[in-house]
């Protein structure tokens, strides 16, 4: 493997980490926030909305990529709005790749966080509110500390999923070296170009990172203890 190939692998790794971290940060707020709402409130169409939010887990990434192109493209409703008012273009940018990664990993974070919140006995929230603590503070003082292991496990899974994102990213952000060419896309390009050594190196790198994330996630996953209360 040439030093040029090695450098491009490192650049792709750096870019992949940047995109995955941004996608994870978005989900930490969006998916965890929605999960809390779904776990603690009863409202009409809750199951239907849950199914819609979980769709990215079962849809082919190319279908998600297509949806994103239609919405975020220059002719799309969101793309046109962003370009007209803010001069922002998302297609073929790393920010576009962040959105693709965030949407494909959303269900993993959302589902795990919802389960984690639901495993917290509602009596804890009720006890805290009868002690005159405001709901907003109860979330940070009681619910989140009791649910955080499940949330972290889901967030790590989401991060791993973002690292491996391929189909939707390729459709939305393309494969521009140094800008949108992530690790998984670089593997594809290396195999296409017959750069076997680079492909081998990248495959090992991705496998090791993925393995470490899963080990950590397993360690954090609650072992059925969170359900019991004092």
């Amino acid at each position, binding site marked *: 493997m040439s030093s040029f190939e090695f450098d491009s692998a490192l650049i792709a790794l750096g870019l992949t980490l940047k995109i995955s971290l941004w996608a994870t940060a978005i989900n930490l707020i969006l998916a965890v926030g929605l999960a809390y709402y779904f776990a603690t409130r009863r409202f009409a169409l809750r199951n239907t909305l849950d199914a819609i939010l979980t769709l990215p887990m079962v849809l082919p990434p190319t279908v998600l990529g297509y949806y994103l192109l239609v919405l975020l493209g220059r002719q799309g409703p969101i793309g046109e709005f962003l370009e007209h008012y803010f001069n922002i273009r998302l297609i073929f940018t790393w920010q576009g790749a962040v959105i693709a990664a965030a949407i494909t990993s959303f269900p993993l974070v959302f589902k795990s966080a919802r389960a984690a919140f639901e495993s917290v*006995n509602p*009596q*804890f929230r*009720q*006890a*805290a*509110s*009868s*002690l*005159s*603590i*405001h709901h907003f*503070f109860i979330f*940070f*003082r*009681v619910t989140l*500390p*009791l649910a955080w292991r499940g949330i972290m496990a889901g967030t790590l899974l989401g991060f791993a999923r973002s690292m491996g994102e391929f189909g939707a990213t390729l459709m939305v952000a393309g494969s521009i070296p140094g800008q949108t060419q992530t690790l998984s896309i670089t593997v594809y390009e290396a195999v296409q170009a017959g750069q076997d050594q680079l492909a081998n190196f990248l495959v090992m790198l991705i496998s090791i990172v993925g393995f470490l994330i899963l080990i950590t996630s397993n360690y954090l996953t609650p072992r059925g203890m969170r359900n019991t*209360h*004092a």
Partner: protein
Amino acid sequence: MLSTNDSSKNSLNNSLNNSSSDRSKPATNKNSVRAQHRNSNQPQTVWQIDLQHTLGQGETQFNVDIQFKSTAQRIVLLGPSGAGKSQTLMMLAGLVEPKQGLIRFKERVLLDTSKKICLTPQQRRVSYMFQDYALFEHLTVAQNIGFALSKGLFNPSSKRIDDKVNVWLDRLGMADAALKYPHQLSGGQKQRVALARSLVHQPDALLLDEPFAALDRDIRGELRSLLIDVQSELNLPMILITHDAEDAQAFAQDTILINAGKIVGE
């Protein structure tokens, strides 16, 4: 006795007395509520309650229709499990909203569905003690007791223990367990912690859901008398629900029998 801190006891009593007059609202008479004035000099009504609610689903569905008025400081709602006692108590605490009804505590209206008044649990200043205590698993005994003293975003520090918490730790003989976590405590200790946690922020009333049900027979008596002592020291109105007539006999100044959501005797 809270002999270690008489001033805190006095301030507690003052706050109890002030709070009812501060938040006084005009009284409304409901004909359906039976009066239970026992003394000729007509002591102050503590609780006036008139609640209608539907519980359960399908075949197990039944209506709760509870009306009483009492001047007693220690009231026991006695009845078999599934009679709707816990739900009634949760309605008093604001944790369950009844279909319709009125709850007046002393001069304060906590709920009046006809006037669309429904105070949140936070506004009611009525502490609720759960049957299995619901102690926060991630907090120490001292943090649990001091939970209500810290109103903001953060839980009380695990290192620095508030003076008010120390008073309770001493009073309940739990000073050695201050840094333990709930899973390290016995049933009786958990109950003491839950009691202290419910009282440390000086609520206007305390509601207790089957406080002795999870305890061994021999410590039951001990905790019963502790509860009666605390009640008379603080002069704090309490409502206790139980399925055990012995609890009622030991604790109640006024017993209300409930079955299938209705009052069947007093």
